[in-house]
């Protein structure tokens, strides 16, 4: 695939944005190789963040899970686990990086808005305007067992809570006037009189009164990311987010359909179509030749999906213990059980298990795939891009210039060196094609992403009413 004539594409000058998602759980991070580093050492985080910064990435991204994942009531022991608190780790990275954005996934159900808004604002100040917040919701009582309030939130209320927490956070971030300090030496007071306004939020799920302790940052507010894929999640993003971290970035048509859906929702709430960046999560595997790239991808998939992992992942779909099955044998003949709704395996709920099983069976029979082979090809997070630097650069150019994506949030398959090829080989290939910047254009995350100034709490409210 080559880049179309500039005149033929909807966005002839669009460039790619990259983020890096340092995973803390999931089978996609290979831990079995001698090259795989620590998942907790500060050096691992520093190396990945600095490599990404060398590659002019917009953002370094951390996830969050507030309870260790379980399968069948027992802690899942096959994947990486055990990670630092995201905002704390990012505050440390702020000291050893200069430009890259620092994005924390932080839950709005089991964090209280005054505390969370303050922690994010602190990160934003320490990093001079590089903080981002990936807003996630949880409703399950299983996670709630680690918190004072327990499982207090109904499923139907999770995005209402998110909306109210975000509105409260924006009110807190706007608590200090611009230019709050008195000018010149010998000031009569530390702040100008009246420079601070208490944020008073009286909603049904957030009822607080907060006097902010922090000024606005160089970028105004932290940048808002959102990752939910449900219709409610997409609407939430359309109303509130600056960046959407989607699961639609492998197949071009799927990516374009998703982008069009998001733009439709943006129009519906009165936002410009270019007000939101779409960065699908993906893996990128690079080889000097197409054959080499495919061989490497094959190795990566086999390391990611070990025989036991294949059985565990199939077990999640069937919602039954399959650990005594033969991973190299056929898929289970029985129908899947009703899906597990506890949330004990993070966001994976497999409500469409019967559909997945039907699809897997069809592919398995058509290709002669074993259980493991099927999970490798079709299982969760099996997508990604594999190719040569030139081939991938052309392909990504096609994606971005046709408006299917704005870039990718890349999950390295190994830490800390999983980004090296992307930064060393793919980025230069993209730059040669004019598809990637030659240097950072600004100093804040908002500037890297080319976003408009931060929106106030009031704006979000108006849009919600309009929507």
């Amino acid at each position, binding site marked *: 695939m080559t880049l179309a004539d500039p005149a033929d594409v909807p966005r002839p000058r669009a460039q790619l944005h990259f983020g890096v998602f340092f995973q803390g759980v999931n089978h996609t991070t290979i831990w*079995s190789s001698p090259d795989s580093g620590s998942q*907790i*050492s*500060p050096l691992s985080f520093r190396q990945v963040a600095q490599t990404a910064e060398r590659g002019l990435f917009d953002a370094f991204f951390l996830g969050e899970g*507030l*309870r*260790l994942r379980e399968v069948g009531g*027992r*802690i899942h*022991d*096959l*994947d990486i*686990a*055990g990670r*630092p*608190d995201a*905002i*704390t780790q990012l*505050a*440390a990275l*702020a*000291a*050893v990086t200069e430009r890259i954005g620092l994005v924390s996934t932080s839950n709005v159900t*089991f*964090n*209280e808005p*005054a*505390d969370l808004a*303050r*922690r994010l*604002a*602190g990160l934003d*100040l*320490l990093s*001079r305007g590089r903080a981002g917040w990936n807003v996630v919701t949880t409703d399950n009582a299983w996670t709630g*067992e*680690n*918190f*004072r*309030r*327990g499982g207090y939130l109904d499923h139907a209320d999770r995005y209402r809570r998110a909306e109210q927490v975000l509105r409260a956070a924006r009110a807190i971030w706007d608590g200090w006037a611009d230019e709050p*300090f*008195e000018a010149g030496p010998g*000031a009569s*007071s*530390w*702040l100008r009189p009246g420079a*601070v306004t208490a944020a008073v939020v009286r909603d049904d799920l*957030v*009822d*607080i*009164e*907060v*006097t902010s*302790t*922090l*000024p606005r940052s160089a970028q105004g507010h932290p940048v808002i990311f959102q990752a939910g894929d449900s219709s409610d999640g997409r609407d939430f993003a359309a109303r509130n987010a600056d960046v959407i971290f989607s699961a639609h970035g492998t197949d071009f048509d799927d990516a374009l359909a998703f982008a069009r859906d998001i733009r439709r929702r943006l129009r519906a709430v009165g936002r410009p179509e270019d007000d939101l960046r779409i960065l699908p999560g993906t893996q990128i595997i690079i080889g000097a030749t197409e054959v080499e790239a495919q061989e490497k991808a094959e190795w990566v998939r086999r390391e990611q999906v*070990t*025989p*036991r992992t294949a059985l565990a992942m199939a077990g999640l779909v069937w919602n039954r213990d399959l650990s005594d099955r033969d991973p190299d044998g056929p898929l289970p003949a029985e129908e899947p059980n009703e899906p597990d709704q506890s949330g004990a395996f993070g966001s994976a709920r497999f409500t469409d298990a019967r559909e997945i099983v039907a699809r897997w069976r069809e592919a398995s029979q058509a290709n002669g795939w074993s259980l493991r082979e099927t999970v490798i090809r079709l299982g969760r997070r099996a997508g990604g891009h594999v190719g040569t630097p030139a081939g991938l650069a052309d392909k990504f150019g096609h994606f971005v210039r046709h408006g299917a994506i704005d870039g990718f949030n890349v999950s390295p398959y190994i830490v800390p060196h999983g980004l090296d090829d992307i930064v060393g080989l793919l980025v230069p290939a993209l730059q040669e094609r004019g598809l990637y910047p030659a240097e950072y254009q600004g100093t804040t995350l908002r500037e890297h992403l080319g976003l408009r100034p931060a929106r106030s709490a009031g704006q979000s409210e108006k849009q919600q009413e309009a929507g």
Partner: protein
Amino acid sequence: MTTPTGLVLGIEIDGDGSHPAAWRRAAHPPAGLFDARRLVGLAEIAERAGFAFVTLDDDIVPPGSHPDVTGRIGSVERAAYLSAALSTLSVVPAVSTTYTEPFHVSSQLASIDHLTAGRSGWLATATDSAEAARAWGRPAVTDAAELRREAADAVEVVRALWDSWEDDAVIRDVASSRYLDRDRLHYIDFVGEGYSVKGPAIVPRPPQGQIVVFAGQGLLPDHLVDVSLLTVPDLSGLPAAAAASRTERTFADVEVALDVRELTAAERVADLGVHGSWPDQGRLRYVGGPAGLVELLAEMADLVDGVRLHPLVLDEDLDVLSRLVIPPLTAAGVVSRPLPGMTLRTFLGLPRPVSRYGAPSIPAGAC
């Protein structure tokens, strides 16, 4: 167990100093309080001077009121930011036990311990303010006994979570495809009066096993605290206060104002006094020349294990402390300073506890 060979010194570096008007004598404009470079600069001076730890006061509400300082960045974020710049100094953020989520507090502090390779502590505090309750959106806890109960529950939970991963829970056993040994991960199943917490933690066990817990004397049961901070107004009360504490270590809080080149300590205090008083918090207070403070600290070395200093104005007093107070004390062997590679526990002579959930450890020869 060995005790450190000398007096351990710490310093509070929140804001501009312990006087509410300290910002008026600070070497930077008000906005500088949010400049990360200033924060690192202060901590580096403290480290070079030979301090063993810095505390970072904090709460969700503003630290003071107009016309004085009403802003600050959270202590956990500041402590984390400092981690990359330091090699012997430990960071001890104040984190309240009232209203906060013990699960998050445990994760945040464990993360700082990983970031600092074991040079961290926790100053556990309580929040007696209706304003904080409104910020959290919770019914106010104002009764002293209730605040103590909340504090004890929070520290109990945080400590249990630190133990919930045994040290060797990450096994990376390729043969069995297992990254974790789930038998070395433990539910804590804490059930208190107000809430329950299941566990295990989401952060692997901190390098120190148990992070050093500091608390003002009387807030918490002694068994939950490693270092008691004693608040006594004069030296004569110190022996009794120290004797009343059954914690492993006892430190005293001391407020200091020192003579600087062109002004005496008393003149500096008087200068700020125009704008308001230096509130009496019942702590020992020293106002005078560096030599007198050297004598006082030498005397205190026989009574307590350490001292935390609260300078009148950080930008003025820290310089005098680092040039004229600590060097003679170090030279005389009164003050001991940490070496690179030491955790805070090691420096304080506290053993590294095995997880309460683990099998008894087999002593390793090299340790």
